[in-house]
Protein backbone atom coordinates (compact mmCIF):
# COMPACT_ATOMS: atom_id res chain seq x y z
CA UNK A 1 0.00 0.00 0.00
CA UNK A 2 1.39 3.36 -0.94
CA UNK A 3 1.73 5.83 1.83
CA UNK A 4 -0.37 8.91 1.11
CA UNK A 5 1.69 12.01 0.43
CA UNK A 6 2.20 14.19 3.45
CA UNK A 7 -0.62 16.67 3.69
CA UNK A 8 0.36 20.34 3.63
CA UNK A 9 0.88 21.69 7.11
CA UNK A 10 -2.33 23.55 7.66
CA UNK A 11 -4.79 22.94 10.38
CA UNK A 12 -7.58 22.30 7.95
CA UNK A 13 -5.92 19.45 6.03
CA UNK A 14 -5.02 17.64 9.26
CA UNK A 15 -8.49 18.11 10.57
CA UNK A 16 -10.08 17.00 7.30
CA UNK A 17 -8.07 13.80 7.20
CA UNK A 18 -8.68 13.11 10.87
CA UNK A 19 -12.39 13.62 10.33
CA UNK A 20 -12.46 11.19 7.39
CA UNK A 21 -10.62 8.58 9.45
CA UNK A 22 -12.94 9.03 12.41
CA UNK A 23 -15.97 8.56 10.17
CA UNK A 24 -14.48 5.39 8.69
CA UNK A 25 -13.69 4.13 12.18
CA UNK A 26 -17.28 4.69 13.19
CA UNK A 27 -18.52 2.80 10.13
CA UNK A 28 -16.27 -0.16 10.82
CA UNK A 29 -17.38 -0.32 14.43
CA UNK A 30 -21.02 -0.25 13.42
CA UNK A 31 -20.70 -3.10 10.93
CA UNK A 32 -22.45 -6.28 12.00
CA UNK A 33 -20.03 -8.96 13.16
CA UNK A 34 -20.15 -11.31 10.18
CA UNK A 35 -18.57 -14.71 10.54
CA UNK A 36 -15.09 -14.80 9.06
CA UNK A 37 -14.82 -11.04 8.67
CA UNK A 38 -12.45 -9.13 10.89
CA UNK A 39 -11.85 -5.45 10.68
CA UNK A 40 -9.47 -5.27 13.58
CA UNK A 41 -6.44 -4.83 11.35
CA UNK A 42 -7.93 -1.87 9.52
CA UNK A 43 -9.18 -0.39 12.78
CA UNK A 44 -5.69 -0.65 14.24
CA UNK A 45 -4.21 1.02 11.15
CA UNK A 46 -6.67 3.89 11.36
CA UNK A 47 -6.04 4.36 15.06
CA UNK A 48 -2.29 4.52 14.49
CA UNK A 49 -2.69 7.07 11.74
CA UNK A 50 -4.99 9.14 13.94
CA UNK A 51 -2.43 9.08 16.72
CA UNK A 52 0.28 10.28 14.34
CA UNK A 53 -1.94 13.04 13.06
CA UNK A 54 -2.84 14.06 16.55
CA UNK A 55 0.77 14.28 17.68
CA UNK A 56 2.16 16.08 14.70
CA UNK A 57 -1.02 17.91 13.84
CA UNK A 58 -1.50 19.31 17.30
CA UNK A 59 1.91 20.94 17.61
CA UNK A 60 2.00 22.08 14.01
CA UNK A 61 -1.54 23.33 14.16
CA UNK A 62 -1.10 25.55 17.19
CA UNK A 63 2.21 26.96 16.01
CA UNK A 64 0.94 27.47 12.46
CA UNK A 65 -2.08 29.25 13.83
CA UNK A 66 0.23 31.57 15.79
CA UNK A 67 2.03 32.40 12.53
CA UNK A 68 -1.23 33.05 10.68
CA UNK A 69 -2.51 35.15 13.59
CA UNK A 70 0.62 37.30 13.34
CA UNK A 71 0.62 37.56 9.53
CA UNK A 72 1.61 41.04 8.44
CA UNK A 73 -1.22 41.27 5.89
CA UNK A 74 -3.93 40.13 8.27
CA UNK A 75 -6.74 42.69 8.44
CA UNK A 76 -6.35 45.16 11.31
CA UNK A 77 -8.84 47.64 12.75
CA UNK A 78 -8.22 50.24 10.03
CA UNK A 79 -8.86 47.58 7.37
CA UNK A 80 -12.19 46.82 9.03
CA UNK A 81 -12.91 50.53 8.92
CA UNK A 82 -11.94 50.77 5.24
CA UNK A 83 -14.04 47.75 4.28
CA UNK A 84 -17.17 48.34 6.30
CA UNK A 85 -17.38 51.65 8.17
CA UNK A 86 -17.30 54.53 5.64
CA UNK A 87 -18.38 57.19 8.12
CA UNK A 88 -15.82 56.29 10.81
CA UNK A 89 -14.78 59.34 12.80
CA UNK A 90 -11.48 58.74 14.55
CA UNK A 91 -11.05 60.35 17.98
CA UNK A 92 -7.67 60.78 19.62
CA UNK A 93 -5.86 61.31 22.85
CA UNK A 94 -6.08 60.32 26.48
CA UNK A 95 -6.76 63.91 27.68
CA UNK A 96 -3.81 63.63 30.01
CA UNK A 97 -0.53 63.07 28.25
CA UNK A 98 -0.64 61.92 24.67
CA UNK A 99 -2.12 59.92 21.84
CA UNK A 100 -1.03 56.32 21.51
CA UNK A 101 -1.28 55.16 17.93
CA UNK A 102 -1.12 51.50 18.96
CA UNK A 103 -4.82 51.89 19.76
CA UNK A 104 -7.34 53.38 17.34
CA UNK A 105 -10.84 54.41 18.36
CA UNK A 106 -13.79 56.39 17.19
CA UNK A 107 -17.45 56.62 16.20
CA UNK A 108 -19.02 54.67 13.37
CA UNK A 109 -22.26 53.39 11.92
CA UNK A 110 -22.52 49.63 11.69
CA UNK A 111 -25.67 48.58 9.89
CA UNK A 112 -28.46 50.43 11.63
CA UNK A 113 -26.42 51.14 14.78
CA UNK A 114 -24.11 53.88 15.87
CA UNK A 115 -21.22 52.34 17.78
CA UNK A 116 -17.93 53.15 19.43
CA UNK A 117 -15.16 51.10 17.87
CA UNK A 118 -11.82 50.59 19.64
CA UNK A 119 -8.94 48.32 18.76
CA UNK A 120 -5.23 47.72 18.35
CA UNK A 121 -3.51 48.62 15.10
CA UNK A 122 -0.16 46.87 14.63
CA UNK A 123 0.55 48.42 11.23
CA UNK A 124 1.35 46.71 7.94
CA UNK A 125 4.58 48.38 6.79
CA UNK A 126 7.70 48.67 8.89
CA UNK A 127 7.25 52.43 9.10
CA UNK A 128 3.66 52.10 10.27
CA UNK A 129 4.61 49.36 12.69
CA UNK A 130 7.20 51.60 14.28
CA UNK A 131 4.74 54.49 14.55
CA UNK A 132 2.24 52.20 16.21
CA UNK A 133 4.71 50.24 18.37
CA UNK A 134 3.53 47.03 16.70
CA UNK A 135 0.17 47.43 18.42
CA UNK A 136 1.72 47.33 21.87
CA UNK A 137 -0.10 50.03 23.81
CA UNK A 138 1.22 52.28 26.56
CA UNK A 139 -0.87 53.70 29.43
CA UNK A 140 -1.86 56.55 27.09
CA UNK A 141 -3.46 54.00 24.77
CA UNK A 142 -5.47 52.25 27.48
CA UNK A 143 -6.56 55.62 28.84
CA UNK A 144 -7.78 56.56 25.36
CA UNK A 145 -9.74 53.31 25.24
CA UNK A 146 -11.29 53.98 28.67
CA UNK A 147 -12.17 57.51 27.69
CA UNK A 148 -13.95 56.30 24.57
CA UNK A 149 -15.73 53.56 26.51
CA UNK A 150 -17.05 56.20 28.90
CA UNK A 151 -18.14 58.30 25.94
CA UNK A 152 -20.10 55.31 24.65
CA UNK A 153 -21.69 54.87 28.06
CA UNK A 154 -22.73 58.51 28.22
CA UNK A 155 -24.47 58.41 24.85
CA UNK A 156 -25.77 54.86 25.10
CA UNK A 157 -23.70 53.50 22.21
CA UNK A 158 -22.63 49.84 22.13
CA UNK A 159 -18.88 49.23 22.24
CA UNK A 160 -17.09 46.95 19.79
CA UNK A 161 -13.42 46.18 20.36
CA UNK A 162 -11.05 44.49 17.92
CA UNK A 163 -8.16 42.89 19.77
CA UNK A 164 -4.80 42.37 18.07
CA UNK A 165 -1.65 42.83 20.13
CA UNK A 166 1.38 40.88 21.21
CA UNK A 167 0.95 42.51 24.61
CA UNK A 168 1.25 45.82 26.39
CA UNK A 169 4.35 47.88 25.54
CA UNK A 170 7.24 46.79 27.74
CA UNK A 171 9.18 50.00 28.30
CA UNK A 172 10.62 52.11 31.08
CA UNK A 173 8.26 55.05 30.49
CA UNK A 174 5.24 52.78 30.24
CA UNK A 175 6.13 51.12 33.53
CA UNK A 176 6.73 54.42 35.29
CA UNK A 177 3.51 55.76 33.82
CA UNK A 178 1.60 52.99 35.58
CA UNK A 179 1.19 50.36 32.87
CA UNK A 180 -0.10 47.71 35.26
CA UNK A 181 -2.55 49.94 37.11
CA UNK A 182 -3.86 51.36 33.85
CA UNK A 183 -4.59 47.89 32.48
CA UNK A 184 -6.36 47.02 35.73
CA UNK A 185 -8.50 50.15 35.49
CA UNK A 186 -9.30 49.44 31.86
CA UNK A 187 -10.55 45.97 32.86
CA UNK A 188 -12.60 47.69 35.56
CA UNK A 189 -14.12 50.23 33.16
CA UNK A 190 -15.08 47.63 30.54
CA UNK A 191 -16.44 45.30 33.22
CA UNK A 192 -18.76 48.04 34.50
CA UNK A 193 -20.22 49.40 31.24
CA UNK A 194 -24.00 49.34 31.03
CA UNK A 195 -24.05 49.45 27.23
CA UNK A 196 -23.72 46.21 25.21
CA UNK A 197 -20.13 45.19 24.50
CA UNK A 198 -18.63 42.77 21.99
CA UNK A 199 -14.91 41.97 21.74
CA UNK A 200 -13.41 40.16 18.77
CA UNK A 201 -9.90 38.76 18.87
CA UNK A 202 -8.94 39.31 15.22
CA UNK A 203 -5.26 38.37 15.41
CA UNK A 204 -3.14 38.08 18.49
CA UNK A 205 -4.70 38.26 21.94
CA UNK A 206 -1.53 38.86 23.94
CA UNK A 207 -1.98 38.66 27.69
CA UNK A 208 -2.98 41.66 29.84
CA UNK A 209 -2.52 44.06 26.94
CA UNK A 210 -5.30 42.21 25.13
CA UNK A 211 -7.53 41.64 28.16
CA UNK A 212 -7.59 45.40 28.78
CA UNK A 213 -9.80 45.65 25.67
CA UNK A 214 -11.39 42.19 25.81
CA UNK A 215 -13.69 42.17 28.82
CA UNK A 216 -17.11 42.10 27.15
CA UNK A 217 -20.60 40.59 27.10
CA UNK A 218 -19.56 38.48 24.11
CA UNK A 219 -16.01 37.50 23.22
CA UNK A 220 -15.56 36.15 19.69
CA UNK A 221 -12.44 34.94 17.93
CA UNK A 222 -11.51 34.65 14.30
CA UNK A 223 -10.68 31.05 13.44
CA UNK A 224 -6.92 31.55 13.12
CA UNK A 225 -6.48 34.06 15.90
CA UNK A 226 -4.87 33.16 19.21
CA UNK A 227 -5.47 34.33 22.78
CA UNK A 228 -3.00 33.53 25.51
CA UNK A 229 -1.76 34.42 28.96
CA UNK A 230 1.80 34.59 27.60
CA UNK A 231 3.43 34.38 24.18
CA UNK A 232 4.53 30.84 23.28
CA UNK A 233 8.12 32.07 23.02
CA UNK A 234 7.95 33.71 26.44
CA UNK A 235 6.40 30.60 27.96
CA UNK A 236 9.04 28.39 26.34
CA UNK A 237 11.84 30.61 27.63
CA UNK A 238 10.48 30.37 31.17
CA UNK A 239 9.32 26.76 31.37
CA UNK A 240 11.54 24.96 28.84
CA UNK A 241 14.34 27.52 29.32
CA UNK A 242 14.54 27.67 25.53
CA UNK A 243 12.53 30.12 23.44
CA UNK A 244 12.94 27.81 20.44
CA UNK A 245 10.43 25.51 22.10
CA UNK A 246 7.69 27.94 21.05
CA UNK A 247 5.80 25.31 19.02
CA UNK A 248 5.55 23.00 22.03
CA UNK A 249 4.51 25.84 24.31
CA UNK A 250 1.91 26.95 21.75
CA UNK A 251 0.39 23.50 21.86
CA UNK A 252 0.48 23.24 25.66
CA UNK A 253 -1.11 26.67 26.20
CA UNK A 254 -4.24 25.74 24.20
CA UNK A 255 -4.41 29.20 22.72
CA UNK A 256 -6.35 28.55 19.50
CA UNK A 257 -9.92 29.68 18.98
CA UNK A 258 -11.14 26.07 18.81
CA UNK A 259 -9.41 25.15 22.08
CA UNK A 260 -10.74 28.19 23.90
CA UNK A 261 -14.28 27.59 22.69
CA UNK A 262 -14.01 24.01 23.94
CA UNK A 263 -12.72 25.27 27.31
CA UNK A 264 -15.70 27.61 27.55
CA UNK A 265 -13.56 30.76 27.72
CA UNK A 266 -14.91 32.44 24.58
CA UNK A 267 -18.38 32.55 23.05
CA UNK A 268 -17.93 31.82 19.34
CA UNK A 269 -15.44 31.24 16.54
CA UNK A 270 -15.80 33.11 13.23
CA UNK A 271 -14.58 31.07 10.24
CA UNK A 272 -11.96 32.63 7.98
CA UNK A 273 -11.75 32.37 4.20
CA UNK A 274 -9.68 29.41 2.98
CA UNK A 275 -5.99 30.21 3.40
CA UNK A 276 -6.58 32.68 6.24
CA UNK A 277 -8.00 36.16 6.83
CA UNK A 278 -5.07 37.84 5.07
CA UNK A 279 -6.05 36.27 1.73
CA UNK A 280 -9.41 38.03 1.63
CA UNK A 281 -10.01 41.12 3.75
CA UNK A 282 -13.44 41.76 2.28
CA UNK A 283 -14.90 38.38 3.18
CA UNK A 284 -13.24 38.34 6.61
CA UNK A 285 -14.51 41.78 7.55
CA UNK A 286 -18.00 40.96 6.29
CA UNK A 287 -18.17 37.82 8.42
CA UNK A 288 -16.84 39.54 11.53
CA UNK A 289 -19.21 42.46 11.23
CA UNK A 290 -22.16 40.15 10.67
CA UNK A 291 -21.34 38.19 13.82
CA UNK A 292 -20.86 41.42 15.79
CA UNK A 293 -24.28 42.67 14.67
CA UNK A 294 -25.94 39.38 15.57
CA UNK A 295 -24.35 39.49 19.02
CA UNK A 296 -25.38 43.11 19.55
CA UNK A 297 -28.96 42.36 18.48
CA UNK A 298 -29.09 39.57 21.04
CA UNK A 299 -27.59 41.73 23.79
CA UNK A 300 -29.96 44.60 23.10
CA UNK A 301 -32.88 42.39 24.04
CA UNK A 302 -31.69 42.45 27.66
CA UNK A 303 -32.03 45.49 29.86
CA UNK A 304 -28.85 47.20 31.00
CA UNK A 305 -28.97 45.89 34.56
CA UNK A 306 -29.50 42.32 33.44
CA UNK A 307 -26.67 42.58 30.91
CA UNK A 308 -24.26 43.94 33.49
CA UNK A 309 -25.20 41.28 35.99
CA UNK A 310 -24.75 38.48 33.42
CA UNK A 311 -21.37 39.87 32.37
CA UNK A 312 -20.21 39.94 35.98
CA UNK A 313 -21.53 36.47 36.64
CA UNK A 314 -19.63 35.20 33.60
CA UNK A 315 -16.31 36.56 34.81
CA UNK A 316 -16.88 35.64 38.45
CA UNK A 317 -17.48 32.02 37.44
CA UNK A 318 -14.34 31.69 35.32
CA UNK A 319 -11.79 29.22 36.56
CA UNK A 320 -11.15 25.52 36.83
CA UNK A 321 -10.45 23.98 40.21
CA UNK A 322 -11.11 20.88 42.27
CA UNK A 323 -12.93 20.59 45.59
CA UNK A 324 -11.14 18.55 48.25
CA UNK A 325 -13.25 16.12 50.23
CA UNK A 326 -13.25 17.60 53.69
CA UNK A 327 -13.23 15.40 56.73
Amino acid at each position, binding site marked *: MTEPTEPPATSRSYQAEALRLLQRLQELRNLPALPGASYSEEIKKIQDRLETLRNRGASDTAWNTVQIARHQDRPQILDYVAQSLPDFLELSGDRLRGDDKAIVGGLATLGSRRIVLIGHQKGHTLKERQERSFGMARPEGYRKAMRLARLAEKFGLPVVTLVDTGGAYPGKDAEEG*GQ*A*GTIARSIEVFANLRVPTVAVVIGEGG*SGGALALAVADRVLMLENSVYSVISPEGCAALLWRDSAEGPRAAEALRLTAGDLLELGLIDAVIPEPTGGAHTDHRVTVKRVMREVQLALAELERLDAGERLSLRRKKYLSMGSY*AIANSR
Partner: protein
Amino acid sequence: MAKYVTVQVTRKEPAAAAGDAGERCKKCGVPLEEGELEKSLRVCPHCSYHYPIPAQTRVEQLADEGTVSFIGEELRTADPLEFFDLRPYPERFSEAQQEAGLTEALLAALCKISGRPAALGVMDFRFMGGSMGSVVGERFYRLAQSAVEGHMPLVVVAASGGARMQEGLFSLMQMAKTVVAVQLLGEARLPFISVLTHPTTGGVLASFSTVADVIMAEPGAVMRFAGARIIEQTTREKLPPDFGSSESQLAHGQIDLVVDRRQLKEYLARCLSFLGGGGTGD
Protein backbone atom coordinates in the same frame (compact mmCIF):
# COMPACT_ATOMS: atom_id res chain seq x y z
CA MET B 1 -14.08 15.63 39.86
CA ALA B 2 -10.84 14.53 41.39
CA LYS B 3 -10.76 13.70 45.07
CA TYR B 4 -8.02 15.16 47.14
CA VAL B 5 -6.89 14.51 50.63
CA THR B 6 -7.14 17.54 52.83
CA VAL B 7 -3.68 18.84 53.57
CA GLN B 8 -3.25 20.46 56.96
CA VAL B 9 -2.07 24.03 56.71
CA THR B 10 1.11 23.85 58.72
CA ARG B 11 1.88 26.79 60.91
CA LYS B 12 5.52 25.90 61.13
CA GLU B 13 7.91 28.25 59.45
CA PRO B 14 10.44 26.70 57.09
CA ALA B 15 14.10 26.80 58.04
CA ALA B 16 15.16 30.43 58.11
CA ALA B 17 17.74 31.30 55.51
CA ALA B 18 19.03 34.11 57.64
CA GLY B 19 18.71 35.08 61.24
CA ASP B 20 19.77 31.81 62.82
CA ALA B 21 22.27 32.03 65.62
CA GLY B 22 25.61 33.22 64.34
CA GLU B 23 24.12 34.50 61.08
CA ARG B 24 24.67 37.90 59.61
CA CYS B 25 22.14 40.01 57.77
CA LYS B 26 22.54 39.00 54.16
CA LYS B 27 21.97 42.61 53.13
CA CYS B 28 24.14 44.70 55.47
CA GLY B 29 26.36 41.98 56.92
CA VAL B 30 25.84 43.02 60.53
CA PRO B 31 25.77 40.00 62.89
CA LEU B 32 22.30 39.16 64.16
CA GLU B 33 21.58 37.91 67.65
CA GLU B 34 19.56 34.77 68.02
CA GLY B 35 15.86 35.50 67.61
CA GLU B 36 16.55 39.16 66.82
CA LEU B 37 15.20 38.92 63.30
CA GLU B 38 12.02 37.13 64.36
CA LYS B 39 11.38 39.74 67.01
CA SER B 40 11.48 42.51 64.42
CA LEU B 41 9.12 40.60 62.08
CA ARG B 42 11.99 39.47 59.86
CA VAL B 43 13.12 42.99 59.12
CA CYS B 44 16.81 43.59 59.74
CA PRO B 45 16.99 45.83 62.85
CA HIS B 46 20.17 47.41 61.46
CA CYS B 47 19.44 48.13 57.79
CA SER B 48 15.64 47.57 57.63
CA TYR B 49 15.98 45.01 54.86
CA HIS B 50 12.65 43.19 54.60
CA TYR B 51 13.14 39.42 54.38
CA PRO B 52 10.43 37.49 52.57
CA ILE B 53 8.03 35.78 54.96
CA PRO B 54 5.63 32.85 54.55
CA ALA B 55 1.94 33.67 54.20
CA GLN B 56 1.23 31.87 57.49
CA THR B 57 3.64 34.18 59.30
CA ARG B 58 2.11 37.25 57.68
CA VAL B 59 -1.35 36.24 58.87
CA GLU B 60 0.03 35.84 62.40
CA GLN B 61 1.64 39.27 62.19
CA LEU B 62 -1.49 41.08 61.02
CA ALA B 63 -4.40 39.23 62.60
CA ASP B 64 -5.29 39.47 66.28
CA GLU B 65 -4.33 36.29 68.09
CA GLY B 66 -7.02 33.63 68.20
CA THR B 67 -9.30 35.35 65.69
CA VAL B 68 -8.24 33.56 62.51
CA SER B 69 -10.32 31.11 60.52
CA PHE B 70 -9.22 30.07 57.06
CA ILE B 71 -11.65 29.88 54.16
CA GLY B 72 -11.53 28.30 50.71
CA GLU B 73 -9.08 25.60 51.84
CA GLU B 74 -11.25 22.99 50.10
CA LEU B 75 -10.50 24.65 46.75
CA ARG B 76 -7.64 22.80 45.13
CA THR B 77 -5.58 23.19 42.01
CA ALA B 78 -6.85 21.36 38.94
CA ASP B 79 -5.09 20.80 35.64
CA PRO B 80 -7.62 21.91 33.01
CA LEU B 81 -5.12 21.97 30.13
CA GLU B 82 -3.27 18.79 31.17
CA PHE B 83 -0.24 21.03 31.00
CA PHE B 84 3.14 19.42 30.55
CA ASP B 85 6.39 21.30 30.10
CA LEU B 86 9.51 19.64 31.40
CA ARG B 87 7.31 18.17 34.12
CA PRO B 88 3.57 17.72 34.48
CA TYR B 89 1.74 20.56 36.24
CA PRO B 90 0.29 18.35 39.02
CA GLU B 91 3.83 17.36 39.98
CA ARG B 92 4.80 21.02 40.22
CA PHE B 93 1.88 22.11 42.36
CA SER B 94 2.06 19.04 44.61
CA GLU B 95 5.69 19.87 45.26
CA ALA B 96 4.80 23.49 45.98
CA GLN B 97 2.16 22.33 48.46
CA GLN B 98 4.73 20.23 50.29
CA GLU B 99 7.40 22.93 50.30
CA ALA B 100 5.23 25.87 51.28
CA GLY B 101 2.89 23.96 53.60
CA LEU B 102 0.04 25.68 51.79
CA THR B 103 -2.72 24.38 49.56
CA GLU B 104 -2.34 27.27 47.10
CA ALA B 105 -0.57 30.60 46.54
CA LEU B 106 -3.26 32.64 48.33
CA LEU B 107 -4.06 32.02 51.98
CA ALA B 108 -7.54 33.34 52.74
CA ALA B 109 -8.59 34.18 56.28
CA LEU B 110 -11.36 35.83 58.23
CA CYS B 111 -9.99 37.52 61.32
CA LYS B 112 -9.79 40.70 63.32
CA ILE B 113 -7.21 43.38 62.71
CA SER B 114 -6.77 45.48 65.85
CA GLY B 115 -10.22 44.51 67.01
CA ARG B 116 -11.91 45.15 63.68
CA PRO B 117 -13.35 42.19 61.73
CA ALA B 118 -11.70 41.86 58.32
CA ALA B 119 -11.21 39.52 55.40
CA LEU B 120 -7.48 38.99 54.89
CA GLY B 121 -5.74 37.40 51.91
CA VAL B 122 -2.01 36.75 51.80
CA MET B 123 -0.09 35.53 48.76
CA ASP B 124 3.03 33.42 49.09
CA PHE B 125 5.82 33.69 46.54
CA ARG B 126 7.13 30.25 47.53
CA PHE B 127 4.08 28.63 45.98
CA MET B 128 4.96 28.59 42.27
CA GLY B 129 6.16 32.18 42.41
CA GLY B 130 2.90 33.33 43.94
CA SER B 131 1.30 32.91 40.54
CA MET B 132 -2.43 33.49 40.13
CA GLY B 133 -4.39 30.54 38.82
CA SER B 134 -8.02 29.53 39.22
CA VAL B 135 -7.80 28.73 42.95
CA VAL B 136 -6.20 32.07 43.77
CA GLY B 137 -8.92 33.83 41.79
CA GLU B 138 -11.74 31.88 43.42
CA ARG B 139 -10.34 32.35 46.94
CA PHE B 140 -10.03 36.06 46.26
CA TYR B 141 -13.67 36.12 45.13
CA ARG B 142 -14.77 34.23 48.24
CA LEU B 143 -12.87 36.68 50.44
CA ALA B 144 -14.70 39.54 48.72
CA GLN B 145 -18.03 37.73 49.16
CA SER B 146 -17.34 37.09 52.85
CA ALA B 147 -16.39 40.71 53.32
CA VAL B 148 -19.66 41.86 51.76
CA GLU B 149 -21.73 39.36 53.74
CA GLY B 150 -20.03 40.23 57.03
CA HIS B 151 -19.85 43.94 56.20
CA MET B 152 -16.07 43.91 56.68
CA PRO B 153 -13.15 45.46 54.82
CA LEU B 154 -10.80 43.39 52.66
CA VAL B 155 -7.02 43.50 52.99
CA VAL B 156 -4.84 41.56 50.54
CA VAL B 157 -1.07 41.26 50.78
CA ALA B 158 0.28 40.51 47.29
CA ALA B 159 3.49 38.77 46.24
CA SER B 160 3.43 37.31 42.79
CA GLY B 161 5.34 36.60 39.62
CA GLY B 162 2.10 37.06 37.70
CA ALA B 163 -0.28 34.66 36.02
CA ARG B 164 -0.05 30.87 36.38
CA MET B 165 1.11 29.90 32.88
CA GLN B 166 0.18 26.26 33.38
CA GLU B 167 -3.49 27.22 33.48
CA GLY B 168 -3.31 29.14 30.20
CA LEU B 169 -6.16 31.54 29.52
CA PHE B 170 -7.96 30.43 32.69
CA SER B 171 -5.27 32.29 34.61
CA LEU B 172 -5.54 35.43 32.46
CA MET B 173 -9.27 35.43 33.19
CA GLN B 174 -8.55 35.57 36.93
CA MET B 175 -7.43 39.16 36.34
CA ALA B 176 -10.94 40.04 35.17
CA LYS B 177 -12.53 37.89 37.86
CA THR B 178 -10.68 39.53 40.74
CA VAL B 179 -11.28 43.05 39.39
CA VAL B 180 -15.01 42.29 39.16
CA ALA B 181 -14.90 40.91 42.73
CA VAL B 182 -13.45 44.22 43.92
CA GLN B 183 -16.50 45.98 42.41
CA LEU B 184 -18.75 44.06 44.80
CA LEU B 185 -16.92 45.60 47.75
CA GLY B 186 -17.06 49.05 46.24
CA GLU B 187 -20.82 48.86 45.77
CA ALA B 188 -21.21 47.84 49.41
CA ARG B 189 -19.02 50.84 50.34
CA LEU B 190 -16.47 48.58 51.95
CA PRO B 191 -12.79 49.43 51.77
CA PHE B 192 -10.24 47.28 49.95
CA ILE B 193 -6.63 47.83 50.95
CA SER B 194 -3.86 46.30 48.91
CA VAL B 195 -0.36 45.74 50.31
CA LEU B 196 2.32 45.10 47.69
CA THR B 197 5.34 43.12 48.81
CA HIS B 198 8.44 41.95 47.00
CA PRO B 199 7.91 41.13 44.20
CA THR B 200 4.48 41.96 42.76
CA THR B 201 4.47 41.73 39.00
CA GLY B 202 2.54 40.92 35.84
CA GLY B 203 -1.09 39.90 36.05
CA VAL B 204 -1.44 40.43 39.80
CA LEU B 205 -0.07 43.97 39.57
CA ALA B 206 -2.36 44.58 36.57
CA SER B 207 -5.53 43.42 38.31
CA PHE B 208 -7.02 43.51 41.81
CA SER B 209 -3.91 44.81 43.55
CA THR B 210 -3.94 48.17 41.74
CA VAL B 211 -7.70 48.83 41.79
CA ALA B 212 -7.67 49.04 45.59
CA ASP B 213 -8.91 52.08 47.50
CA VAL B 214 -5.54 52.40 49.19
CA ILE B 215 -2.29 50.84 47.97
CA MET B 216 0.54 50.34 50.45
CA ALA B 217 3.91 48.75 49.73
CA GLU B 218 6.76 47.40 51.80
CA PRO B 219 10.08 49.25 51.45
CA GLY B 220 12.31 47.99 48.67
CA ALA B 221 9.62 45.82 47.07
CA VAL B 222 9.82 45.64 43.29
CA MET B 223 6.68 46.13 41.21
CA ARG B 224 6.73 45.73 37.47
CA PHE B 225 4.27 44.77 34.80
CA ALA B 226 6.80 43.50 32.28
CA GLY B 227 9.94 41.57 33.15
CA ALA B 228 13.21 43.51 33.20
CA ARG B 229 14.71 41.29 30.50
CA ILE B 230 11.75 41.81 28.17
CA ILE B 231 11.99 45.58 28.64
CA GLU B 232 15.73 45.61 27.93
CA GLN B 233 15.35 43.33 24.90
CA THR B 234 12.45 45.28 23.38
CA THR B 235 13.61 48.83 24.01
CA ARG B 236 17.38 48.43 24.54
CA GLU B 237 16.95 50.62 27.62
CA LYS B 238 19.17 49.76 30.52
CA LEU B 239 17.19 49.57 33.72
CA PRO B 240 18.53 50.57 37.13
CA PRO B 241 18.58 47.63 39.56
CA ASP B 242 15.89 49.20 41.76
CA PHE B 243 13.60 49.84 38.79
CA GLY B 244 9.97 49.63 39.87
CA SER B 245 10.80 49.80 43.58
CA SER B 246 8.20 50.94 46.11
CA GLU B 247 10.02 54.22 46.55
CA SER B 248 10.06 54.93 42.81
CA GLN B 249 6.41 53.87 42.44
CA LEU B 250 5.55 56.30 45.22
CA ALA B 251 7.46 59.09 43.46
CA HIS B 252 5.63 58.29 40.19
CA GLY B 253 2.23 58.52 41.87
CA GLN B 254 1.33 54.85 41.54
CA ILE B 255 0.93 53.95 45.22
CA ASP B 256 -0.20 55.73 48.38
CA LEU B 257 2.31 54.77 51.05
CA VAL B 258 5.53 52.91 51.69
CA VAL B 259 5.11 51.23 55.07
CA ASP B 260 7.70 49.41 57.14
CA ARG B 261 6.50 45.91 58.06
CA ARG B 262 6.87 46.71 61.75
CA GLN B 263 4.24 49.44 61.36
CA LEU B 264 2.02 47.70 58.84
CA LYS B 265 -0.65 46.49 61.23
CA GLU B 266 -0.90 49.92 62.82
CA TYR B 267 -1.22 51.60 59.40
CA LEU B 268 -3.90 49.15 58.29
CA ALA B 269 -5.88 49.77 61.46
CA ARG B 270 -5.58 53.54 61.08
CA CYS B 271 -6.63 53.42 57.46
CA LEU B 272 -9.58 51.11 58.18
CA SER B 273 -10.74 53.36 61.00
CA PHE B 274 -11.01 56.24 58.53
CA LEU B 275 -12.71 54.31 55.75
CA GLY B 276 -15.18 52.49 57.98
CA GLY B 277 -16.44 49.04 57.25
CA GLY B 278 -16.56 46.45 59.93
CA GLY B 279 -18.16 46.63 63.29
CA THR B 280 -21.30 44.72 62.47
CA GLY B 281 -19.80 41.46 61.25
CA ASP B 282 -18.22 38.91 63.47
